[in-house]
Protein backbone atom coordinates (compact mmCIF):
# COMPACT_ATOMS: atom_id res chain seq x y z
CA UNK A 1 0.00 0.00 0.00
CA UNK A 2 1.60 3.27 -1.07
CA UNK A 3 0.03 6.42 0.20
CA UNK A 4 1.05 9.48 -1.78
CA UNK A 5 0.61 12.52 0.40
CA UNK A 6 -0.63 15.47 -1.64
CA UNK A 7 -0.10 13.76 -4.99
CA UNK A 8 2.16 16.00 -7.07
CA UNK A 9 1.38 17.59 -10.40
CA UNK A 10 3.84 17.08 -13.29
CA UNK A 11 5.17 20.63 -12.73
CA UNK A 12 5.91 19.84 -9.10
CA UNK A 13 7.55 16.57 -10.05
CA UNK A 14 9.95 18.35 -12.40
CA UNK A 15 10.85 20.91 -9.75
CA UNK A 16 10.89 18.24 -7.02
CA UNK A 17 13.39 18.01 -4.19
CA UNK A 18 14.84 21.51 -4.23
CA UNK A 19 18.48 22.37 -4.74
CA UNK A 20 19.81 19.75 -2.32
CA UNK A 21 18.23 16.79 -4.15
CA UNK A 22 19.33 18.21 -7.49
CA UNK A 23 22.89 18.63 -6.21
CA UNK A 24 23.00 15.06 -4.89
CA UNK A 25 21.63 13.72 -8.16
CA UNK A 26 24.14 15.72 -10.23
CA UNK A 27 26.98 14.53 -8.01
CA UNK A 28 25.84 10.93 -8.39
CA UNK A 29 25.85 11.32 -12.16
CA UNK A 30 29.34 12.85 -12.09
CA UNK A 31 28.22 16.32 -13.23
CA UNK A 32 30.38 18.06 -10.65
CA UNK A 33 30.12 21.70 -11.80
CA UNK A 34 26.35 21.44 -11.81
CA UNK A 35 26.43 19.78 -8.38
CA UNK A 36 28.58 22.60 -6.95
CA UNK A 37 26.19 25.18 -8.38
CA UNK A 38 23.18 23.51 -6.73
CA UNK A 39 25.00 23.00 -3.42
CA UNK A 40 25.86 26.71 -3.34
CA UNK A 41 22.28 27.68 -4.17
CA UNK A 42 21.08 25.39 -1.38
CA UNK A 43 23.62 26.86 1.05
CA UNK A 44 22.58 30.42 0.21
CA UNK A 45 18.89 29.59 0.58
CA UNK A 46 19.36 27.87 3.94
CA UNK A 47 21.64 30.62 5.21
CA UNK A 48 18.96 33.18 4.37
CA UNK A 49 16.43 31.17 6.37
CA UNK A 50 18.81 30.91 9.33
CA UNK A 51 19.25 27.15 8.86
CA UNK A 52 23.00 27.30 9.35
CA UNK A 53 23.39 23.57 9.89
CA UNK A 54 22.13 22.77 6.39
CA UNK A 55 24.02 25.63 4.75
CA UNK A 56 27.23 24.42 6.42
CA UNK A 57 26.66 20.93 5.02
CA UNK A 58 26.03 22.31 1.53
CA UNK A 59 29.16 24.49 1.62
CA UNK A 60 31.11 21.46 2.83
CA UNK A 61 29.72 19.33 0.00
CA UNK A 62 30.60 22.01 -2.55
CA UNK A 63 34.09 22.39 -1.07
CA UNK A 64 34.69 18.65 -1.48
CA UNK A 65 33.80 18.81 -5.14
CA UNK A 66 35.66 22.01 -5.99
CA UNK A 67 38.88 20.89 -7.56
CA UNK A 68 40.53 24.31 -7.70
CA UNK A 69 42.21 24.51 -4.29
CA UNK A 70 41.71 28.24 -3.78
CA UNK A 71 37.98 28.01 -4.40
CA UNK A 72 37.81 24.88 -2.30
CA UNK A 73 39.55 26.58 0.63
CA UNK A 74 37.13 29.50 0.46
CA UNK A 75 34.20 27.12 0.56
CA UNK A 76 35.67 25.22 3.52
CA UNK A 77 35.93 28.55 5.34
CA UNK A 78 32.30 29.30 4.60
CA UNK A 79 31.33 25.83 5.83
CA UNK A 80 33.34 26.42 9.02
CA UNK A 81 31.68 29.81 9.56
CA UNK A 82 28.24 28.26 9.23
CA UNK A 83 28.98 25.34 11.56
CA UNK A 84 30.16 27.95 14.04
CA UNK A 85 26.98 30.01 13.62
CA UNK A 86 24.97 26.82 14.17
CA UNK A 87 26.90 26.01 17.35
CA UNK A 88 26.17 29.49 18.73
CA UNK A 89 22.50 29.19 17.86
CA UNK A 90 21.88 25.88 19.62
CA UNK A 91 24.19 26.11 22.61
CA UNK A 92 21.30 26.54 25.03
CA UNK A 93 18.94 24.04 23.44
CA UNK A 94 21.37 21.21 22.77
CA UNK A 95 24.88 21.59 24.18
CA UNK A 96 25.93 18.26 22.62
CA UNK A 97 24.98 19.62 19.18
CA UNK A 98 26.84 22.87 19.85
CA UNK A 99 29.97 20.94 20.76
CA UNK A 100 29.68 18.86 17.60
CA UNK A 101 29.15 22.05 15.54
CA UNK A 102 32.35 23.56 16.96
CA UNK A 103 34.31 20.40 16.18
CA UNK A 104 32.95 20.33 12.62
CA UNK A 105 33.87 24.01 12.22
CA UNK A 106 37.41 23.23 13.39
CA UNK A 107 37.71 20.44 10.80
CA UNK A 108 36.60 22.83 8.06
CA UNK A 109 39.00 25.57 9.15
CA UNK A 110 41.88 23.06 9.13
CA UNK A 111 41.02 22.15 5.54
CA UNK A 112 40.85 25.84 4.71
CA UNK A 113 44.33 26.27 6.20
CA UNK A 114 43.03 28.50 9.02
CA UNK A 115 44.77 26.84 11.92
CA UNK A 116 44.19 29.67 14.40
CA UNK A 117 40.47 29.65 13.78
CA UNK A 118 40.42 25.88 14.21
CA UNK A 119 42.31 26.14 17.48
CA UNK A 120 39.85 28.76 18.75
CA UNK A 121 36.97 26.41 18.00
CA UNK A 122 38.61 23.52 19.82
CA UNK A 123 39.31 25.74 22.85
CA UNK A 124 35.63 26.68 22.86
CA UNK A 125 34.76 22.98 22.85
CA UNK A 126 36.83 22.38 25.99
CA UNK A 127 35.50 25.53 27.69
CA UNK A 128 31.91 24.66 26.88
CA UNK A 129 32.22 21.06 28.01
CA UNK A 130 33.86 22.20 31.24
CA UNK A 131 31.32 24.97 31.88
CA UNK A 132 28.38 22.66 31.40
CA UNK A 133 30.03 19.80 33.23
CA UNK A 134 28.99 17.91 30.16
CA UNK A 135 30.34 14.54 29.40
CA UNK A 136 29.03 13.12 26.17
CA UNK A 137 26.54 10.36 26.81
CA UNK A 138 28.40 7.53 25.16
CA UNK A 139 27.84 3.82 25.40
CA UNK A 140 29.26 1.90 28.27
CA UNK A 141 31.86 -0.82 27.96
CA UNK A 142 30.39 -4.25 27.37
CA UNK A 143 29.22 -5.85 30.58
CA UNK A 144 27.40 -9.11 30.24
CA UNK A 145 23.86 -8.81 31.54
CA UNK A 146 24.01 -12.51 32.41
CA UNK A 147 25.66 -14.07 35.42
CA UNK A 148 28.56 -16.20 34.20
CA UNK A 149 27.66 -19.85 34.05
CA UNK A 150 29.54 -21.99 36.51
CA UNK A 151 29.28 -25.70 35.89
CA UNK A 152 29.31 -28.26 38.68
CA UNK A 153 32.72 -28.58 40.29
CA UNK A 154 34.13 -25.49 38.52
CA UNK A 155 36.44 -23.35 40.60
CA UNK A 156 35.87 -19.80 41.74
Amino acid at each position, binding site marked *: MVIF*KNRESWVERIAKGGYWAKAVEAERRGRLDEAIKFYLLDAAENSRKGRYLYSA*LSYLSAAKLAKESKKSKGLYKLAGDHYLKYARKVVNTSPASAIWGLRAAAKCYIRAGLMEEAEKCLKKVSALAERLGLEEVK*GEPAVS*PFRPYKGKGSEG
Partner: protein
Amino acid sequence: MRVLILTEGTYPYYRGGVSTWIHNLIKGLQDVDFYILSLVTNPFVKPLYNLPPNVKKLITVPLWGTIWVEEYSSFPRGRLIRRRSVRSSTGVKDLFVPYFQELLFEMIKGNPSYKRMSEYLYGLWNILREYDYRRAFRERKLWSAIIQLVKEDPLYSAMSLRSFLRILEAIKRMMLILTVEMPEVDVLHSSVASLGGLPAIIEKMDKGCPYLITEHGVYYRERLLELMRSSEDLASKTLWVNIYKSIVGLNYYHADKVLPVCRFNARWEGLFGVSTEKVEVIYNGVDVERFKPLKGLEEEKLIVVVSRIEKLKDTLNLIEALKLVLEEDSEVRCEVYGPIVDKSYYELCLRRIKELGVGDAISFMGPTPRPEMEYNRATLVVLPSLSEGFPYSVIEAMACGKLVIATSVGGIPEALGDCGILVPPRSPRLLADAILKGLRDERLRRELGAKARKRVLRLFTKERFLEDYRRVYVEALSNLKFDTPCL
Protein backbone atom coordinates in the same frame (compact mmCIF):
# COMPACT_ATOMS: atom_id res chain seq x y z
CA MET B 1 17.47 16.52 3.43
CA ARG B 2 15.61 13.25 2.87
CA VAL B 3 15.44 10.64 5.59
CA LEU B 4 13.99 7.14 5.37
CA ILE B 5 12.54 5.91 8.66
CA LEU B 6 12.27 2.12 8.89
CA THR B 7 9.78 0.73 11.36
CA GLU B 8 8.61 -2.73 12.39
CA GLY B 9 5.13 -3.24 13.78
CA THR B 10 4.81 0.38 14.86
CA TYR B 11 4.24 3.71 13.08
CA PRO B 12 1.82 4.61 11.62
CA TYR B 13 -0.27 1.45 12.09
CA TYR B 14 0.08 0.75 15.81
CA ARG B 15 0.12 2.98 18.87
CA GLY B 16 2.83 2.99 21.51
CA GLY B 17 6.06 4.66 22.59
CA VAL B 18 7.96 4.03 19.36
CA SER B 19 5.09 5.37 17.25
CA THR B 20 4.84 8.47 19.47
CA TRP B 21 8.59 8.95 19.11
CA ILE B 22 8.47 8.73 15.29
CA HIS B 23 5.41 10.99 15.06
CA ASN B 24 7.02 13.62 17.30
CA LEU B 25 10.27 13.44 15.35
CA ILE B 26 8.59 13.89 11.97
CA LYS B 27 6.22 16.60 13.17
CA GLY B 28 9.07 18.46 14.87
CA LEU B 29 11.56 18.34 11.99
CA GLN B 30 9.52 20.17 9.35
CA ASP B 31 12.73 21.02 7.47
CA VAL B 32 13.35 17.32 6.73
CA ASP B 33 11.49 15.26 4.11
CA PHE B 34 10.62 11.87 5.55
CA TYR B 35 9.94 8.59 3.79
CA ILE B 36 8.60 5.71 5.86
CA LEU B 37 9.08 2.01 5.29
CA SER B 38 6.77 0.16 7.63
CA LEU B 39 6.86 -3.60 8.18
CA VAL B 40 3.46 -4.90 9.24
CA THR B 41 1.90 -8.28 9.81
CA ASN B 42 -0.79 -8.11 7.10
CA PRO B 43 -1.89 -5.88 4.22
CA PHE B 44 -5.19 -4.90 5.83
CA VAL B 45 -3.92 -2.67 8.64
CA LYS B 46 -5.07 0.94 8.64
CA PRO B 47 -2.94 3.95 9.65
CA LEU B 48 -3.78 5.27 13.11
CA TYR B 49 -1.93 8.56 12.69
CA ASN B 50 -2.48 11.49 10.34
CA LEU B 51 0.80 11.71 8.50
CA PRO B 52 2.42 15.17 8.70
CA PRO B 53 2.88 16.99 5.35
CA ASN B 54 6.64 16.39 5.35
CA VAL B 55 6.04 12.62 4.98
CA LYS B 56 6.59 12.22 1.26
CA LYS B 57 5.82 8.54 0.98
CA LEU B 58 4.69 5.64 3.11
CA ILE B 59 5.78 2.22 1.88
CA THR B 60 4.03 -0.62 3.66
CA VAL B 61 5.50 -4.10 3.58
CA PRO B 62 3.07 -6.76 4.79
CA LEU B 63 5.11 -9.83 5.75
CA TRP B 64 2.06 -12.07 5.99
CA GLY B 65 -1.24 -12.20 4.14
CA THR B 66 0.27 -11.82 0.67
CA ILE B 67 3.09 -13.28 -1.34
CA TRP B 68 3.14 -10.38 -3.82
CA VAL B 69 4.53 -7.82 -1.43
CA GLU B 70 5.83 -5.73 -4.36
CA GLU B 71 2.25 -4.91 -5.27
CA TYR B 72 1.98 -2.96 -2.03
CA SER B 73 5.16 -1.00 -2.67
CA SER B 74 6.24 1.35 -5.42
CA PHE B 75 8.04 -1.35 -7.36
CA PRO B 76 8.35 -0.28 -11.03
CA ARG B 77 5.53 -2.04 -12.85
CA GLY B 78 7.63 -2.78 -15.95
CA ARG B 79 10.30 -4.56 -13.94
CA LEU B 80 7.66 -6.40 -11.94
CA ILE B 81 6.05 -7.82 -15.08
CA ARG B 82 9.44 -8.67 -16.59
CA ARG B 83 10.52 -10.40 -13.40
CA ARG B 84 7.39 -12.49 -13.18
CA SER B 85 7.72 -13.51 -16.79
CA VAL B 86 11.16 -15.08 -16.20
CA ARG B 87 10.23 -18.72 -16.47
CA SER B 88 13.68 -20.31 -16.51
CA SER B 89 14.72 -21.75 -13.17
CA THR B 90 18.41 -21.86 -14.11
CA GLY B 91 19.11 -18.49 -12.53
CA VAL B 92 17.35 -19.50 -9.35
CA LYS B 93 19.22 -22.79 -9.12
CA ASP B 94 22.62 -21.38 -9.99
CA LEU B 95 22.44 -18.06 -8.21
CA PHE B 96 19.72 -17.86 -5.59
CA VAL B 97 20.11 -21.29 -3.99
CA PRO B 98 23.86 -21.13 -3.19
CA TYR B 99 23.58 -17.55 -1.85
CA PHE B 100 20.56 -18.43 0.28
CA GLN B 101 22.20 -21.57 1.61
CA GLU B 102 25.33 -19.66 2.65
CA LEU B 103 23.28 -16.87 4.22
CA LEU B 104 21.19 -19.31 6.21
CA PHE B 105 24.31 -21.13 7.38
CA GLU B 106 25.75 -17.84 8.70
CA MET B 107 22.45 -16.99 10.37
CA ILE B 108 22.01 -20.24 12.25
CA LYS B 109 25.55 -21.10 13.24
CA GLY B 110 25.71 -18.81 16.26
CA ASN B 111 28.86 -16.84 15.49
CA PRO B 112 28.16 -15.31 12.11
CA SER B 113 30.61 -13.45 9.94
CA TYR B 114 28.78 -10.20 9.30
CA LYS B 115 30.97 -9.46 6.31
CA ARG B 116 29.99 -12.71 4.62
CA MET B 117 26.35 -12.32 5.66
CA SER B 118 26.30 -8.87 4.03
CA GLU B 119 27.75 -10.22 0.79
CA TYR B 120 25.16 -13.00 0.57
CA LEU B 121 22.32 -10.68 1.45
CA TYR B 122 23.40 -8.16 -1.16
CA GLY B 123 23.74 -10.97 -3.68
CA LEU B 124 20.23 -12.24 -2.94
CA TRP B 125 18.81 -8.76 -3.25
CA ASN B 126 20.44 -8.36 -6.65
CA ILE B 127 19.08 -11.71 -7.81
CA LEU B 128 15.58 -10.90 -6.58
CA ARG B 129 15.62 -7.71 -8.62
CA GLU B 130 15.53 -9.90 -11.71
CA TYR B 131 13.91 -13.13 -10.55
CA ASP B 132 10.57 -13.83 -9.01
CA TYR B 133 10.65 -14.38 -5.24
CA ARG B 134 7.88 -16.97 -5.32
CA ARG B 135 9.60 -19.01 -8.00
CA ALA B 136 12.84 -18.89 -6.01
CA PHE B 137 11.17 -20.35 -2.94
CA ARG B 138 9.42 -23.04 -4.93
CA GLU B 139 12.71 -24.46 -6.08
CA ARG B 140 13.17 -28.05 -4.84
CA LYS B 141 16.95 -27.63 -4.73
CA LEU B 142 16.55 -24.82 -2.20
CA TRP B 143 14.53 -26.93 0.24
CA SER B 144 16.92 -29.86 -0.13
CA ALA B 145 19.79 -27.53 0.71
CA ILE B 146 18.00 -26.23 3.82
CA ILE B 147 17.15 -29.76 5.03
CA GLN B 148 20.76 -30.74 4.48
CA LEU B 149 21.96 -27.82 6.62
CA VAL B 150 19.67 -28.78 9.50
CA LYS B 151 20.41 -32.50 9.23
CA GLU B 152 24.14 -31.87 9.56
CA ASP B 153 23.72 -30.14 12.92
CA PRO B 154 23.33 -32.50 15.91
CA LEU B 155 21.11 -30.07 17.85
CA TYR B 156 18.95 -28.72 15.04
CA SER B 157 18.34 -32.20 13.65
CA ALA B 158 16.52 -33.02 16.91
CA MET B 159 13.95 -30.30 16.19
CA SER B 160 10.33 -31.35 15.75
CA LEU B 161 8.96 -31.23 12.21
CA ARG B 162 6.32 -28.73 13.29
CA SER B 163 8.92 -26.29 14.66
CA PHE B 164 11.12 -26.76 11.62
CA LEU B 165 8.30 -25.94 9.21
CA ARG B 166 7.28 -22.89 11.24
CA ILE B 167 10.81 -21.55 11.23
CA LEU B 168 11.21 -22.15 7.50
CA GLU B 169 7.98 -20.32 6.75
CA ALA B 170 9.12 -17.40 8.92
CA ILE B 171 12.50 -17.22 7.16
CA LYS B 172 10.79 -17.33 3.80
CA ARG B 173 8.59 -14.43 4.89
CA MET B 174 11.58 -12.50 6.22
CA MET B 175 13.19 -12.68 2.79
CA LEU B 176 10.18 -10.87 1.31
CA ILE B 177 11.73 -7.69 2.55
CA LEU B 178 14.48 -8.05 -0.05
CA THR B 179 11.97 -7.39 -2.81
CA VAL B 180 11.13 -3.88 -1.62
CA GLU B 181 12.08 -0.99 -3.91
CA MET B 182 13.73 1.81 -1.93
CA PRO B 183 13.18 5.56 -2.43
CA GLU B 184 16.05 7.99 -3.09
CA VAL B 185 17.13 9.35 0.30
CA ASP B 186 20.18 10.86 2.03
CA VAL B 187 20.01 9.17 5.43
CA LEU B 188 18.60 5.80 6.55
CA HIS B 189 17.23 5.65 10.07
CA SER B 190 15.82 2.48 11.59
CA SER B 191 13.75 2.55 14.75
CA VAL B 192 14.88 -0.94 15.70
CA ALA B 193 17.94 -3.13 15.13
CA SER B 194 16.03 -5.97 13.51
CA LEU B 195 14.61 -7.33 10.30
CA GLY B 196 13.28 -3.89 9.40
CA GLY B 197 16.86 -2.66 9.10
CA LEU B 198 17.80 -5.08 6.29
CA PRO B 199 16.63 -2.85 3.41
CA ALA B 200 18.66 -0.02 4.93
CA ILE B 201 21.75 -2.24 5.08
CA ILE B 202 21.36 -3.12 1.41
CA GLU B 203 20.80 0.51 0.49
CA LYS B 204 23.90 1.49 2.41
CA MET B 205 25.94 -1.16 0.62
CA ASP B 206 24.51 -0.09 -2.72
CA LYS B 207 24.57 3.69 -2.47
CA GLY B 208 26.70 4.47 0.57
CA CYS B 209 23.97 6.33 2.49
CA PRO B 210 24.69 6.63 6.23
CA TYR B 211 22.69 4.27 8.43
CA LEU B 212 21.50 5.19 11.93
CA ILE B 213 19.67 3.02 14.45
CA THR B 214 17.61 4.22 17.39
CA GLU B 215 17.00 1.54 19.98
CA HIS B 216 13.95 1.88 22.20
CA GLY B 217 13.58 -1.49 23.88
CA VAL B 218 16.52 -3.74 23.05
CA TYR B 219 15.10 -5.98 20.32
CA TYR B 220 17.43 -8.90 21.06
CA ARG B 221 16.70 -8.74 24.79
CA GLU B 222 12.95 -8.64 24.22
CA ARG B 223 13.13 -11.62 21.87
CA LEU B 224 15.09 -13.56 24.51
CA LEU B 225 12.43 -12.76 27.11
CA GLU B 226 9.76 -13.93 24.69
CA LEU B 227 11.60 -17.17 23.90
CA MET B 228 12.19 -17.90 27.59
CA ARG B 229 8.44 -18.02 28.11
CA SER B 230 7.61 -19.87 24.91
CA SER B 231 6.90 -23.60 24.79
CA GLU B 232 9.22 -24.29 21.83
CA ASP B 233 11.77 -27.11 22.13
CA LEU B 234 15.40 -26.35 22.94
CA ALA B 235 16.61 -26.86 19.36
CA SER B 236 14.17 -24.37 17.85
CA LYS B 237 14.77 -21.87 20.67
CA THR B 238 18.50 -22.07 19.94
CA LEU B 239 17.86 -21.65 16.24
CA TRP B 240 15.70 -18.58 16.87
CA VAL B 241 18.28 -17.06 19.22
CA ASN B 242 20.95 -17.49 16.55
CA ILE B 243 18.76 -16.02 13.82
CA TYR B 244 17.88 -12.98 15.95
CA LYS B 245 21.48 -12.56 17.00
CA SER B 246 22.71 -12.59 13.40
CA ILE B 247 20.13 -10.03 12.24
CA VAL B 248 20.66 -7.70 15.20
CA GLY B 249 24.45 -8.00 14.93
CA LEU B 250 24.32 -7.29 11.19
CA ASN B 251 22.40 -4.08 11.90
CA TYR B 252 25.00 -2.92 14.42
CA TYR B 253 27.83 -3.91 12.07
CA HIS B 254 26.55 -1.58 9.37
CA ALA B 255 25.27 1.24 11.54
CA ASP B 256 27.24 4.47 11.36
CA LYS B 257 25.74 5.48 14.66
CA VAL B 258 23.65 3.69 17.25
CA LEU B 259 21.38 6.01 19.21
CA PRO B 260 19.85 4.22 22.20
CA VAL B 261 17.18 6.08 24.14
CA CYS B 262 18.95 5.29 27.42
CA ARG B 263 22.26 4.06 28.81
CA PHE B 264 20.70 0.75 29.77
CA ASN B 265 20.35 -0.14 26.08
CA ALA B 266 23.94 0.87 25.39
CA ARG B 267 25.05 -1.95 27.68
CA TRP B 268 23.43 -4.50 25.42
CA GLU B 269 24.88 -2.88 22.33
CA GLY B 270 28.32 -3.17 23.92
CA LEU B 271 27.71 -6.89 24.25
CA PHE B 272 27.45 -7.08 20.47
CA GLY B 273 30.81 -5.36 20.13
CA VAL B 274 29.44 -1.95 19.12
CA SER B 275 32.23 0.50 19.92
CA THR B 276 31.41 3.23 22.41
CA GLU B 277 32.48 5.79 19.80
CA LYS B 278 29.57 4.74 17.63
CA VAL B 279 27.01 5.06 20.44
CA GLU B 280 25.27 8.26 21.54
CA VAL B 281 22.36 8.23 23.95
CA ILE B 282 19.56 10.58 22.88
CA TYR B 283 16.82 10.75 25.46
CA ASN B 284 13.22 11.23 24.38
CA GLY B 285 11.79 14.69 24.90
CA VAL B 286 8.36 16.03 25.80
CA ASP B 287 6.46 19.17 24.94
CA VAL B 288 6.71 20.98 28.27
CA GLU B 289 4.05 23.49 27.25
CA ARG B 290 1.50 20.73 26.69
CA PHE B 291 2.59 18.54 29.60
CA LYS B 292 2.60 20.92 32.54
CA PRO B 293 0.96 21.06 35.98
CA LEU B 294 -2.66 22.21 35.72
CA LYS B 295 -4.24 23.46 38.90
CA GLY B 296 -7.54 22.16 40.19
CA LEU B 297 -7.67 18.91 38.26
CA GLU B 298 -6.10 16.53 40.77
CA GLU B 299 -8.46 13.93 42.18
CA GLU B 300 -8.06 12.11 45.47
CA LYS B 301 -6.71 8.58 45.62
CA LEU B 302 -6.58 8.15 41.85
CA ILE B 303 -3.79 6.08 40.31
CA VAL B 304 -3.25 6.64 36.59
CA VAL B 305 -1.36 4.19 34.39
CA VAL B 306 -0.62 5.03 30.75
CA SER B 307 0.58 1.86 29.08
CA ARG B 308 -0.37 -0.68 26.44
CA ILE B 309 -1.99 -3.87 27.72
CA GLU B 310 0.53 -6.61 27.03
CA LYS B 311 2.89 -9.00 28.81
CA LEU B 312 5.94 -6.73 28.79
CA LYS B 313 3.95 -3.96 30.48
CA ASP B 314 3.05 -6.39 33.28
CA THR B 315 -0.48 -5.18 33.98
CA LEU B 316 -0.88 -8.26 36.22
CA ASN B 317 1.75 -6.80 38.54
CA LEU B 318 -0.41 -3.68 38.87
CA ILE B 319 -3.59 -5.69 39.50
CA GLU B 320 -1.96 -7.73 42.25
CA ALA B 321 -0.46 -4.60 43.84
CA LEU B 322 -3.86 -2.90 43.68
CA LYS B 323 -5.42 -5.76 45.65
CA LEU B 324 -2.85 -5.17 48.42
CA VAL B 325 -3.44 -1.40 48.32
CA LEU B 326 -7.21 -1.89 48.62
CA GLU B 327 -6.72 -4.02 51.74
CA GLU B 328 -5.29 -0.86 53.39
CA ASP B 329 -7.46 1.75 51.70
CA SER B 330 -10.66 0.72 49.95
CA GLU B 331 -11.25 4.14 48.33
CA VAL B 332 -8.32 3.94 45.93
CA ARG B 333 -9.16 3.80 42.20
CA CYS B 334 -6.98 2.99 39.24
CA GLU B 335 -7.45 4.02 35.59
CA VAL B 336 -5.39 2.33 32.88
CA TYR B 337 -5.07 4.24 29.59
CA GLY B 338 -3.71 2.47 26.53
CA PRO B 339 -4.64 0.11 23.71
CA ILE B 340 -5.09 -3.64 24.17
CA VAL B 341 -2.42 -5.15 21.95
CA ASP B 342 -2.48 -8.68 23.36
CA LYS B 343 -6.08 -9.81 23.69
CA SER B 344 -5.33 -13.11 25.44
CA TYR B 345 -3.21 -11.26 28.02
CA TYR B 346 -6.04 -8.76 28.51
CA GLU B 347 -8.45 -11.64 29.16
CA LEU B 348 -5.96 -13.05 31.64
CA CYS B 349 -5.95 -9.67 33.41
CA LEU B 350 -9.76 -9.65 33.53
CA ARG B 351 -9.78 -13.15 35.04
CA ARG B 352 -7.24 -12.07 37.68
CA ILE B 353 -9.29 -8.96 38.49
CA LYS B 354 -12.32 -11.17 39.03
CA GLU B 355 -10.37 -13.67 41.16
CA LEU B 356 -9.01 -10.89 43.37
CA GLY B 357 -12.33 -9.02 43.50
CA VAL B 358 -10.86 -5.65 42.51
CA GLY B 359 -13.19 -5.04 39.56
CA ASP B 360 -14.78 -1.94 41.12
CA ALA B 361 -11.43 -0.22 41.64
CA ILE B 362 -9.78 -0.66 38.23
CA SER B 363 -10.94 0.55 34.80
CA PHE B 364 -9.42 -0.01 31.38
CA MET B 365 -10.09 3.27 29.61
CA GLY B 366 -8.54 2.59 26.16
CA PRO B 367 -6.17 5.04 24.46
CA THR B 368 -6.52 8.70 25.41
CA PRO B 369 -6.03 11.64 23.05
CA ARG B 370 -5.38 13.97 26.03
CA PRO B 371 -2.91 12.16 28.31
CA GLU B 372 -1.89 15.50 29.88
CA MET B 373 -5.38 15.79 31.39
CA GLU B 374 -5.26 12.27 32.81
CA TYR B 375 -1.82 12.83 34.38
CA ASN B 376 -3.12 16.02 35.97
CA ARG B 377 -6.18 14.22 37.34
CA ALA B 378 -3.96 11.60 38.95
CA THR B 379 -2.86 11.62 42.57
CA LEU B 380 0.11 9.62 41.39
CA VAL B 381 1.23 7.88 38.21
CA VAL B 382 2.36 4.25 38.10
CA LEU B 383 4.24 2.18 35.50
CA PRO B 384 4.48 -1.52 36.46
CA SER B 385 6.46 -2.78 33.40
CA LEU B 386 8.74 -5.75 32.99
CA SER B 387 10.71 -4.12 30.18
CA GLU B 388 10.93 -0.55 28.93
CA GLY B 389 13.07 1.69 26.76
CA PHE B 390 12.71 5.31 27.82
CA PRO B 391 8.96 5.56 28.36
CA TYR B 392 7.11 8.71 27.39
CA SER B 393 4.54 8.04 30.09
CA VAL B 394 7.21 8.55 32.77
CA ILE B 395 8.66 11.79 31.42
CA GLU B 396 5.24 13.17 30.50
CA ALA B 397 3.95 12.54 34.03
CA MET B 398 7.15 14.08 35.42
CA ALA B 399 6.60 17.16 33.23
CA CYS B 400 3.10 17.43 34.75
CA GLY B 401 4.74 17.57 38.18
CA LYS B 402 3.42 14.19 39.30
CA LEU B 403 4.94 11.65 41.62
CA VAL B 404 5.85 8.64 39.48
CA ILE B 405 6.16 5.13 40.91
CA ALA B 406 7.73 2.76 38.42
CA THR B 407 9.66 -0.47 38.13
CA SER B 408 13.41 -0.09 37.82
CA VAL B 409 13.69 -1.52 34.30
CA GLY B 410 15.30 -0.21 31.10
CA GLY B 411 15.76 3.55 31.06
CA ILE B 412 13.29 4.31 33.87
CA PRO B 413 15.96 4.83 36.57
CA GLU B 414 17.75 7.29 34.23
CA ALA B 415 14.51 9.16 33.57
CA LEU B 416 13.35 9.36 37.18
CA GLY B 417 16.71 9.96 38.86
CA ASP B 418 15.86 10.85 42.45
CA CYS B 419 12.54 12.45 41.52
CA GLY B 420 10.27 9.42 41.92
CA ILE B 421 9.99 6.01 43.55
CA LEU B 422 11.54 2.94 41.94
CA VAL B 423 10.53 -0.61 42.80
CA PRO B 424 11.85 -3.92 41.46
CA PRO B 425 9.81 -5.48 38.63
CA ARG B 426 7.34 -8.27 39.40
CA SER B 427 7.08 -7.31 43.07
CA PRO B 428 3.42 -6.49 43.80
CA ARG B 429 4.06 -6.14 47.56
CA LEU B 430 6.78 -3.52 47.08
CA LEU B 431 4.76 -1.73 44.41
CA ALA B 432 1.75 -1.63 46.75
CA ASP B 433 3.88 -0.27 49.62
CA ALA B 434 5.26 2.48 47.37
CA ILE B 435 1.76 3.41 46.17
CA LEU B 436 0.45 3.59 49.76
CA LYS B 437 3.43 5.72 50.79
CA GLY B 438 2.80 8.08 47.85
CA LEU B 439 -0.92 8.33 48.55
CA ARG B 440 -0.47 9.03 52.26
CA ASP B 441 2.37 11.56 52.08
CA GLU B 442 1.21 14.71 50.31
CA ARG B 443 4.44 16.57 51.04
CA LEU B 444 6.47 13.82 49.39
CA ARG B 445 4.23 14.00 46.33
CA ARG B 446 4.60 17.77 46.04
CA GLU B 447 8.39 17.75 46.56
CA LEU B 448 9.16 14.91 44.16
CA GLY B 449 6.66 16.21 41.60
CA ALA B 450 8.27 19.66 41.54
CA LYS B 451 11.75 18.13 41.28
CA ALA B 452 10.57 15.90 38.45
CA ARG B 453 9.27 18.86 36.44
CA LYS B 454 12.62 20.65 36.90
CA ARG B 455 14.50 17.55 35.76
CA VAL B 456 12.41 17.35 32.58
CA LEU B 457 13.02 21.04 31.82
CA ARG B 458 16.76 20.46 32.19
CA LEU B 459 17.17 17.14 30.37
CA PHE B 460 14.14 15.92 28.48
CA THR B 461 12.65 18.76 26.43
CA LYS B 462 11.26 18.27 22.96
CA GLU B 463 13.49 21.09 21.62
CA ARG B 464 16.65 19.32 22.77
CA PHE B 465 15.43 15.99 21.40
CA LEU B 466 14.65 17.47 17.97
CA GLU B 467 17.88 19.43 17.74
CA ASP B 468 19.89 16.34 18.63
CA TYR B 469 18.30 14.37 15.81
CA ARG B 470 18.57 17.21 13.26
CA ARG B 471 22.26 17.42 14.12
CA VAL B 472 22.77 13.63 14.03
CA TYR B 473 21.36 13.50 10.48
CA VAL B 474 23.64 16.29 9.30
CA GLU B 475 26.53 14.86 11.31
CA ALA B 476 26.20 11.52 9.49
CA LEU B 477 26.35 13.27 6.12
CA SER B 478 29.12 15.65 7.21
CA ASN B 479 31.23 12.72 8.42
CA LEU B 480 30.77 11.11 5.04
CA LYS B 481 32.14 14.27 3.43
CA PHE B 482 35.00 14.60 5.92
CA ASP B 483 36.02 10.96 5.73
CA THR B 484 35.86 10.21 2.01
CA PRO B 485 38.69 11.40 -0.27
CA CYS B 486 38.04 14.24 -2.74
CA LEU B 487 37.01 13.23 -6.27
